[in-house]
C-alpha cells in the first residue's frame, strides 16, 4: 500500500515542457492580440500580461481554464494539446470588451 501511495505521489513530477510559448496582453480591458494562431497538437505556454491597473480573469470553458491576473502583473496558463478549431476566451470582469480567440490549425 505504501508503495502504491508513493508512486501516485510521483505522478505529477513527470515533466513535459511546453512546445510553444506565446504572449497575450490586456490593455484598456481588451486582449492584444485578440486572435492567436497556434499549432494543433502542441502544448502551449501562454503568458498573460495585464497592463491595466485593475484585475482581470482569463476564462475559457472551451480551454477549461480560469486564472485571475491582478493589475500590472502577469500570469502563466498552460493549454493544449488542442484539436484544430476555435477556442474563445474572455475576461470575466469585463466580458463585453475583453474577448479573444485561439485558433488551433
Amino acid at each position, binding site marked *: *500500500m*505504501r508503495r502504491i*501511495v508513493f508512486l*501516485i*505521489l510521483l*505522478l*505529477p*513530477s*513527470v*515533466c*513535459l515542457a*511546453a512546445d510553444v510559448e506565446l504572449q497575450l496582453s490586456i490593455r484598456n480591458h481588451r486582449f492584444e492580440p485578440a486572435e492567436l494562431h497556434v499549432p494543433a497538437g502542441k*502544448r502551449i505556454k501562454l503568458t498573460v500580461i495585464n497592463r491595466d491597473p485593475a*484585475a482581470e*480573469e482569463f476564462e475559457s*470553458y472551451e480551454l*477549461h*481554464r*480560469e*486564472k*485571475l491576473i*491582478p493589475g500590472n502583473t502577469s500570469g*502563466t*496558463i*498552460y*493549454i*493544449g494539446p488542442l*484539436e484544430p478549431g476555435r477556442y474563445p476566451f474572455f475576461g*470575466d*470582469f*469585463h*466580458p463585453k470588451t475583453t474577448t479573444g480567440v485561439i485558433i488551433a490549425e
Partner: protein
Amino acid sequence: MKRGIIFVVGAVALTLSRLCAAGPADYVYTPAVEYGEREIDFKAGRANTHDADQNSAASLGFGYGAKPHWFTEFYAKYESQGAGATHFDAWEWENKFQLTETGEYPVDAGFVVELERPQDHSEGYEVRFGPLFQTEFGKVQLNGNLLFERYYRASTTEPMQFGYQWQAKYRWAEAFEFGLQGFGDVGPWDSWDPADQQSHRFGPAVFGKLPVGVHKAIRYNAALLLKASSGAPNSTFRMQIEYEF
C-alpha cells in the same frame, strides 16, 4: 441582484437540507485554486443504510481563494440519524493547496487539509488530509484523491483511516456535464478491513456552472451513489451548490 441570488441559494439549501443529506464532506475535491474567488457553499446528502434507516447531513460554508495556490473554507456541519432531528454536528476548516499549474504536467496535483471540531468534544479533533490529482483527455476530466483521516485528543484511540474518491466527467456544456463519481473507505491505512467491511460506492453524477452576472456564477454537482460492497449504504444521494462571486 446579489441579495436575490443569495436568498434563492439559501432557500434552496434549506429546503434540500430537510430532504436529503449524508456525508456532506463527501464531495470530490479538485486540485485547482481560483485565486480571489469567494463562495458560499452548501452541501447535503442522505444515505439509506442496511436497516432501511436514513442518515443525513448538510453543511453551509464560506470559502475564499486567499492566495494563487491556497483556498480556505470554513463550514458549519449538521446531521441527523434515523428519525432524529437535525442538529449541529461540527465546525470544519478546509484548506486546499494547488501544487502544480493547471495543464503544466500530464497530471495536476493539489493537497487538502481539513480540521474538524465535533460538537461532541469526546471525539476530539478530526484531521483529514491527502493528495489530489486531475488529468484531462479532450473533453473528459478525471480526478482521483487519496484521503487519510485521524482523530486527535479523542476519548478513544483509533488508527489512521484511509479512503479514496474519484470522478470521471464529460464536459458536454458549461451548464450541464455528466459522468460518474465514486467514494470508498477501506479502514486503517496500513491494515485494511476485510473486503466485506469496506465501503465502496459509485454512481452517476451531473455537474454544471450557470453564470449569473459579471464574475458571478452558481456551480452545482450531484450524484446518486450505489452500494458496491457490503459495508456501504444501499444508496446515497449527495449534492453541492456554490454561489461564486
